């Protein structure tokens, strides 16, 4: 019995010591530090993009030397695995447990919608998007304290339809992954493409992570001018390889993540045929402005383990974090009165980002530039996306009037439709 008591006693002492240490640590942190939550996917299929997103946020903070609004900024980093459940759990941990007053994130579309819904239950905290690009997050039932300084999936494809028509692609066949983000991308493309007389004769929606495209390739009609391929990562590589093996020779139009650097570097004969593939997005590898060049140089200097050039996610997290910190500077770190002044400053935020102006509309959604690009060969033999055109000031109505956009509705598997 004595031994039990001894162990028990020691346990109590140890626990008390732990508590004391935790308390002391807590006090030490309380000196004029502002905690900002930062959520990105560090697990699951988007682990690499999530890591790069965090690099973008870190870069924005580094530029300000870790200070904003006269306070030291500390990131409370949390992670998700690209599922909405985990994203909300992690956000809740940062908000309710770590008591952050501003929350940046998440990374992917459905997560963004889930976090927006959670934001409604926390009116005293301001939520700023990371890189999520689902239309619904700000367009449908928006939360008054959820801000998104980046443009979304549909906006990223505006202008690509006209470009495809100008290249003579009047009839196309669409292959896309079957979830929210590609729906938005397809809508962004088709809204203008269909209006100007293009026809998407059929759509093949494939599940995320499809490895075998044989049945889809067999379905491609002979009489189309081009394929619209909205696939990402390994799905895109798998499709391109199999299409090549099947002897396919139609030109392609890609989504925002279809012909990015991860795909352009794959090996194979078909790679040559990617030359000239048009795609569109909120940034491009070869934007020819001093702001973009400085951003790339800063990124390369700060992160030796990063990509050769900042990814889409690094860029989006960067502009959202920069907007967060700029607004804090504008109100001198004043978050009192339920962050009223801070949110007004956020609404007025307007700066020249690496890839064009960053500002938001009345729904707190980004209005920005979309770049139409084409795959080009650099002198050293590597492939990159060359900017052929930039379309400024794209709003969430995709260049249509509000009524016209409402008539079309949100993008789904069957909306919009222009088969014949």
């Amino acid at each position, binding site marked *: 019995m004595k031994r039990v008591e001894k162990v028990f006693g020691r346990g109590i002492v140890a626990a008390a010591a732990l508590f004391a240490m935790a308390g002391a640590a807590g006090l030490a942190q309380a000196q004029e530090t502002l905690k900002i939550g930062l959520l990105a996917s560090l697990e699951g299929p988007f682990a690499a993009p999530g890591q790069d997103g965090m690099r973008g946020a870190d870069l924005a903070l580094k530029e300000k030397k870790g200070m904003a609004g006269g306070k030291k900024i500390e990131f409370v980093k949390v992670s998700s*695995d690209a599922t909405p459940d985990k994203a909300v759990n992690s956000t809740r941990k940062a908000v309710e*447990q770590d008591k952050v007053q501003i929350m940046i994130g998440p990374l992917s579309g459905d997560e963004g919608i889930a976090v927006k819904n959670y934001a409604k239950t926390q009116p005293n905290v301001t939520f700023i998007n990371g890189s999520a690009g689902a239309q619904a997050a700000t367009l449908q039932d928006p939360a008054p304290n959820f801000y998104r300084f980046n443009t979304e999936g549909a906006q990223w494809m505006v202008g690509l339809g006209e470009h495809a028509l100008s290249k003579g692609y009047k009839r196309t066949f669409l292959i896309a992954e079957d979830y929210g983000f590609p729906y938005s991308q397809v809508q962004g493309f088709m809204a203008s493409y269909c209006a100007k007389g293009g026809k998407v004769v059929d759509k093949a929606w494939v*599940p995320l992570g499809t490895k075998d495209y044989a049945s889809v390739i067999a379905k491609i009609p002979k009489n189309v001018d081009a394929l619209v391929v909205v696939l990402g990562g390994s799905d895109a590589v798998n499709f391109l390889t199999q299409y090549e093996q099947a002897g396919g020779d139609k030109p392609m139009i890609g989504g925002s993540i279809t012909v990015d650097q991860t795909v352009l570097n794959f090996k194979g004969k078909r790679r040559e045929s990617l030359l000239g593939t048009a795609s569109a997005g909120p940034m491009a590898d070869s934007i020819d402005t001093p702001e973009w060049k400085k951003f790339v140089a800063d990124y390369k200097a700060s992160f030796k383990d990063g990509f050769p050039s900042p990814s889409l996610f690094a860029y989006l997290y960067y502009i959202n974090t920069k907007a967060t910190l700029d607004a804090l500077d504008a109100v001198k770190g004043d978050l009192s009165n339920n962050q009223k002044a801070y949110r007004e400053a956020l609404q007025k935020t307007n700066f020249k980002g690496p890839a064009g102006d960053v500002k938001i509309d009345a729904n707190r959604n980004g209005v920005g530039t979309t770049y139409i690009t084409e795959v080009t060969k650099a002198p050293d033999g590597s492939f990159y996306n060359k900017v052929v055109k930039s379309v400024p000031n794209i709003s969430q109505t995709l260049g249509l009037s509000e009524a016209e956009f409402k008539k079309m509705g949100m993008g789904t598997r069957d909306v919009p439709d222009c088969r014949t």
Partner: protein
Amino acid sequence: MSAAQWRRAMKSGGSMPAQEARVTALPRAVASPSQPAEPPPAHGELPRWLGRLLRPVRWRHVLVALLVLVYPFVASPFFTFQIGAQSLALGLIALSLTFLGGYGGMVSLAQMTVAGFAAYVVAIVGSSSNTAISLGWPWWLAVIVALALATLFSAAVGWLSVRTEGIYTIMITLAVGVAFFYLAQQNYTLFNGFQGFSKLAAPTVFGLDLREPVPFYLLTLGCSVAGYFFIKHLIRAPFGVALQGIRDNPRRMQALGFDVTAHRVAAYAVSGFLAAVGGVLLVWYNGRISPGTLGIGAMINILIIAVLGGMKHPIGAFIGAIVFVLLQNFAIDLVDRERFNLVIGGVFLAIVLFSPDGLLGLWHRLRTRLGAPFPTRGSGRIHQ
């Protein structure tokens, strides 16, 4: 009269070690003849049914009950909701696996699938953001239908897999789980594909909003406690004893005239019911259901929780769930942001390495090492 007083009154008949040494693995019918020998409670007659109900209650149960009841009133809403309620809901699903694996000898990976099935039924027949699919039935009807269908579903999974053993059961249930995951992800007419359903928050009952942390915590607590005592009771009832017999030697049980297949399918149905309750709680907790919730990772998490806690006693599932949820939430604070999964994996490895019986086994061994005063609490107690 409190449960503790009742216990004291009950124990006054015999000395404490004798009570503790009672072979609890024996069926109830054997243990009960000793009951009439005990004197009636000192103050007033207690109904017999209540007495029988309170018989398995021990002082440590009362202590734990006090702790978990006081917990939501001292903890922050975050700890009440995200740590407390989530642990209990996951623990309930893991408990169904503990029952099936620990007492039936059938390790099923499909418990999360059954839970997810119940969650999907709640979304489909109840009301959700997707008005085109959801039928909009009242929540209580949706829950009843969900529990019933999920129990049937689990029995069907059992019927498919009971003819196999060991690793083949794992493979078949894994196949069922993965098949259901892909069905949910690719079927748009019923399951709404990748996006699933949202706006599935807990209902308001008699003016009490179950979405609030404390009521929701108490709801999950109530379900978990009921599940825990249900299993405690079941494993001593003739059915449970027969199931353990089948686990240990199915051929002998068959020779004795037991229908092995029927017992196993029934065990799947019972575990399916528990998992379904956990699934309904989980869908209310998340407020949404999509294929990711019941993917392969989630299926394996349930196995991890059960193994982590220990499968030799129903409480192991809940202990495992608490440790799992705490690790998931706080491992990221301990180490470098990009490597926190290493901590989670490391802790799991360490626990399984040092104690194949999970945390319960660890606790048990610690007690035997310190345990000169409790010689009777040997291995017999934990192997209920």
